[in-house]
């Protein structure tokens, strides 16, 4: 079932924003769908406020890294990540970015102010989940292969439940953050 999926996504942000956590969620979602998956992550010193970059490849791949101009999409937790990592994107790729205004990129970019939304929720550490929730909205608005994330809101919700087993409060707050992004309207 999952075997027809072939998708390469770049996720980036700054150390402490939770890039690795949402990479993990998407990878778990891929496994639940019966897909093969590779991720590649930044650990160590860069996690101290430096730029953090993850690659995730779902489907029949053997290399953990994405080559330039091959990625189907970018999830950017800071607007600056588009300039830093936009070079991974193929023509027509999508971008979901945490930004107060829609950036001018030449790609199919959509923005929400996840910082403001997470502060409003009283959960400033949930910027990553708010943005991921927003990215999952794409399944409705976009048509065609790889024009949206390979998985659905429900897939990520179950992955979240698996990751935060036994931590009910944290799980509830995380699902709320995911929903907030999912329901948020795009910044123009």
């Amino acid at each position, binding site marked *: 079932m999952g075997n027809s999926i072939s998708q390469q996504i770049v996720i980036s942000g*700054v*150390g*402490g924003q939770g890039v690795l956590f949402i*990479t*993990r969620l998407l*990878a*778990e979602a*891929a*496994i639940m769908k019966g*897909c*093969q*998956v*590779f*991720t*590649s*992550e*930044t*650990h*160590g*010193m*860069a*996690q*101290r*406020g*430096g*730029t953090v*970059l993850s690659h995730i490849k779902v489907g029949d*791949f*053997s*290399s*953990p*890294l994405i*080559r*330039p*101009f091959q990625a189907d999409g970018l999830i950017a937790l800071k607007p*600056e990540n588009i*300039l*830093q*990592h*936009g*070079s991974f994107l193929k023509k027509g790729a999508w971008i979901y970015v945490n930004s107060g205004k829609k950036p001018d990129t030449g790609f199919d970019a959509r923005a929400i102010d996840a*910082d403001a939304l997470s*502060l409003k929720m009283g959960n*400033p550490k949930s910027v990553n989940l708010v943005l991921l929730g927003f990215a999952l909205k794409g399944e409705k608005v976009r048509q065609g292969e790889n024009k949206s994330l390979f998985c659905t809101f429900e897939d990520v919700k179950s992955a979240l439940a698996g990751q935060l087993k036994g931590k009910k409060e944290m799980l509830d707050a995380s699902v709320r953050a995911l929903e907030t992004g999912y329901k948020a309207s795009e910044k123009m």
Partner: protein
Amino acid sequence: MGRKKLMLGNEAIAQGLLENSCAIATSYPGTPASEILASLVRIKEKHSLPVHSQWAVNEKVAFEIAYAGCMAGLRTAVSMKQVGLNVASDPLMSAAYMGAKGGFIVISADDPGPHSSQTEQDSRLMAMMAKIPVLDPDSPAQAKDMISIAYELSETFEIPVMLRPTTRVCHSRQDVQANKFGSFERKADFKKDPARWAATPKFRFKLHTELEKKLEKIAAHKKTAPVKLNKKAVSGKAVIVSGVAAAHTREIMKALGLWDKTPLFQVIQPYPLHTNFISSICTDYDEVLVIEESMPVIEMQIADRTRARGKLNGFVSRVGEILPEAIEQMLCDFAGLKADKITVQSQPGRRPTLCAGCPHRASFFAIKKAAPKGIYTSDIGCYTLGLNLGAVDTVLCMGAAISQAGGFYHAFKNESKRPDIVATIGDSTFFHAGIPALIDTVVQNVHFTLVILDNRTTAMTGNQPTPASGFGASGETLEIVDIEALVKGCGVKFCKTGDPCKIKEFLPIVKEAVQYARDKGPAVVIARHPCLIGGKSKEKRTKKIFVEITDACEACEYCISHFECPAIVFDIDKKRADIDPLLCSGCGVCVHVCPKKAIVIK
């Protein structure tokens, strides 16, 4: 057969160790190897497996503990990062001669790039120097499979075996099959044999001779022989790969349509390279391209240099990580395909910095105030980032802050104006390699100040405990080693402890220490405040202090350049500094930093 699970490469290695009955696992944390022991501990606790697992005080100690376990017939493993192997190289060289009884795996994780290391050194060359076999995995799944191969190799030939993953294997995640855990029934049994385990030089020669015989056989061992991955491909040209370069190359050869054309060999065991493989490469192919990280270990063993393209003739870069886009170019060149020259233009990312509220920032601020013109030697850890603050002048290797302080003192001691020398070292690094150096400064009466940045944890690598934590890898209660007592035991006569986040009280302590060092000799300040992120420190966090910036701010940017807290940002519209409430930890130290007193408590 278990189900497939998403595993980090390091987790897959841990799972492999437990599936293959590893009874003792030791490590010292270091990126990219740290999660191997941490994962092993998590899995063994979950399944109540009788495995001794521990963080050791340094890699040499970790190696020797695990090695003695294998002398007693058990399967054991030690894991570390590549520069950690330098520290453990003394026992490594000798253990190669004496060999193993139970299976013994040395896991040394390399970091081509480098992403989080001082060097791009290749542990496979260390294996070659020690004369032990080394396996080079291409993925988390293969790293796990190689554990069983490594133990079998180690026990068949009674030799330590190295597993050499790289960052891209350690820190990739993949769907990996989890299998049944091994049996832990084997009993420890040490058979005394002084001619082997305590060999004098005469017997060492005999052991060395035996080691050479082992290597000859290992170079013909079927299970670790190079594999031709694309059986059907026939050509006068072949590609030889190992490690993660193999994973990249497979994918790219398929994308370029070379899979059915150009033979691709994956080397499983880069040293010793299989004898038959070396000769067949030279007879069957006119030309081979060798892609490996990070040094030409396979390439050097290919006897006919005229046939090989690789690092030695500059065809493959000798520095840095071999990224898949570079492999694509090499393959196109090698196969005579036209390649679009890939030029990527992108902005550089943000440099790492100490976290908002990090106690080290306060310590560095105090050091710069107390000895503004000092020479600042420092060490390996989060606090290396003190270089952003101009408070770190040197970083060499673990423990060197203290010995280098000694060196600078001796270099300047006959000068009329001697600079203050202030060394900084983390608590874990102090235990690891700082103590012998401190003893030396006492013996030589080095006039310097040592600030031990005691944040109660090994922060940089993911908050592993230190000998002063009082708990172990599984959270079990352990003895506490008292840093003050240790410092005094080394013979230091000035040793005071303070909390750097109480900067008003802390600064006078540092000033007093610097004065003492000028007049008398070594002075130590222990800057104690728990790390803000992670760690299991039971010490209570101080109450959050909410701060704001008033109109007294003159936009001098002193706080930004001299304190560099991520939570203090410059607001271009307001033309003054501002506090980012998302990032501020509420430590309150910045209140004492602003020369205009514009940062105030709310």
